[in-house]
């Protein structure tokens, strides 16, 4: 998309026309059709109708998510319409984790079913469970204060003058980019105004307390840098608006080729908001699907394409695949992974990238470098281990063929 917007283009009837490559045969073919709508001749060059400008604006967020996010963040920072926790802006990523990822992994309440609550309710549940210091609650109250909301709404309303579409005819890539940027910015302002209006309505209808709790929770996480509830956690990466969302596995046991059991300690499987979204183990840990024992090792996954777009659904999928692999992926019979649980005398597998053998199509690539040997004997436990007998610790790879 960015490459397209660096060329010189022509605008005609709301469509972007791109240069038609010069080819004598094509020249002959198009000679009789210049009057047709699809072709435009400008300064002796032919352009072909390619893209609706309106459609480009409507779908820009999907076509160039990173560019859109950069613009969106700049817009939010420029207008200061979003709260800050110290120097840390509470941007869309934290919002996405809190409202999109957290509800998947935190249980509202146990017991017989009643009304199923939505994502909004779970934030109230979390806000109720976490002791949020008073200063964040006060700051949230100021942020959603009706007078302040009205003031911000007025600021935004006076800021953007309506934009006219660019003139028809040739347009440089730079001019087009600038126009698109201003149009997207105006649209973001409209959305922000809608959001502020909704907040005002809720505030005036007396539903502001829950709103305040949620905002106080966001301020608290952004400022403190971390939060953990029911085994699900959020941890900020440095002083940025990027985070790691993680889920604890709890203790679990795996079975080896001979049916012997190995008790694995709890670990945190995390996914950072920085794309590609790939699951890793946050602490120093060993497992057949981890290359060594260092913290931050990616989990070896099969047929998994990490998402290059940050969304709640992609984060949930990466977390689930990572946990699923650690808990359920090891086959005692096939001894899959970098390492075998039992000290086998059978050959393990090494891969030579150029040995000419066909590889299964879902093998993304083959490592040729060597990995360290990891021993699991210290994890061995008897079958009558109290945790396993009582059912507190599950043998999670029993059913893996």
């Amino acid at each position: 998309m960015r490459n397209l917007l660096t060329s010189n283009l022509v605008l005609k009837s709301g469509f972007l026309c791109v240069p038609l490559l010069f080819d004598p045969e094509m020249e002959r073919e198009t000679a009789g059709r210049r009057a047709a709508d699809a072709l435009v001749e400008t300064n002796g060059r032919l352009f072909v109708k390619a893209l609706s400008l309106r459609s480009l604006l409507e779908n820009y967020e999907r076509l160039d998510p990173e560019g859109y996010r950069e613009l969106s963040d700049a817009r939010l920072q420029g207008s200061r319409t979003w709260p800050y926790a110290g120097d840390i802006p509470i941007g869309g990523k934290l919002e996405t984790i809190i409202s999109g990822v957290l509800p998947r992994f935190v249980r509202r309440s146990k017991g017989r079913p009643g009304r199923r609550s939505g994502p909004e309710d779970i934030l109230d549940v979390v806000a109720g469970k976490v002791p949020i210091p008073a200063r964040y609650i006060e700051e949230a109250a100021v942020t959603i204060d009706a007078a302040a909301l009205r003031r911000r709404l007025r600021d935004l309303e006076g800021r953007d003058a309506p934009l006219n579409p660019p003139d028809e005819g040739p347009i440089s890539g730079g001019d087009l980019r600038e126009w698109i940027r201003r149009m997207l910015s105006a649209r973001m302002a409209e959305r922000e105004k809608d959001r502020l209006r909704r907040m005002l309505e809720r505030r005036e209808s007396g539903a502001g307390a829950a709103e305040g709790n949620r905002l106080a929770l966001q301020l608290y996480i952004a400022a403190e840098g971390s939060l953990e509830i029911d085994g699900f956690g959020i941890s900020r990466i440095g002083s940025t608006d990027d985070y790691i969302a993680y889920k604890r596995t709890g203790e679990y046991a795996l079975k080896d080729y001979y049916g012997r059991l190995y008790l694995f300690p709890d670990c945190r499987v995390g996914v950072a908001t920085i794309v590609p979204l790939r699951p890793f183990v946050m602490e120093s840990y060993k497992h057949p699907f981890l290359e060594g024992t260092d913290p931050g090792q990616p989990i070896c996954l099969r047929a998994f394409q990490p998402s290059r777009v940050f969304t709640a659904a992609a984060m949930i999928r990466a977390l689930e695949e990572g946990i699923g692999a650690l808990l359920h992926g090891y086959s005692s019979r096939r001894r899959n992974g970098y390492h075998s649980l039992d000290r086998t005398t059978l050959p393990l597998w090494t891969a030579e990238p150029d040995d000419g053998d066909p590889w299964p199509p879902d093998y993304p690539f083959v490592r040729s470098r060597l990995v360290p040997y990891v021993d699991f004997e210290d994890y061995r436990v008897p079958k009558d281990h109290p945790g396993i007998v009582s059912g507190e610790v599950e043998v999670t790879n029993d059913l893996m063929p």
Partner: protein
Amino acid sequence: MTKPEKAGKTEVFEQVLPLVLEIIPGQAAEGLIDVYEPGSYEEKPLRKLCEMTLNEKNWSIEDQQILEDVNRQLAGGRLMCRGRAIDGTALDQAVVEETEEGERYLYLPIRAIKPQEGGSLPSRPVVRAPREGRATCGTC
């Protein structure tokens, strides 16, 4: 963690407790909840109860989304109860729990898991024993 109280057939028959069956997709915290009143589940195989729950039609929109998620996991996956196959009856695996109001019930969580076969192996061994310290994963 407190040790869960196993149901035990005699006790349940004496107390006549309802069964709360929850089918949870993947690693989610919450799933599809169905309640079986006493007398309607004791003799039925657990697998049959799960099928009955999954075949119900009158789910809310939120529950339908969970049902879709469960079905996605079951495409290539399986239902598991505490790491084991769902054999036997609900009474074999359920635990007694209590609501905040003090109402006792049997609770049985079932997970729909599609295993991630991380680190699968290439089609033939090439060499190297682990004692000498070297192997590769071959997948990631």
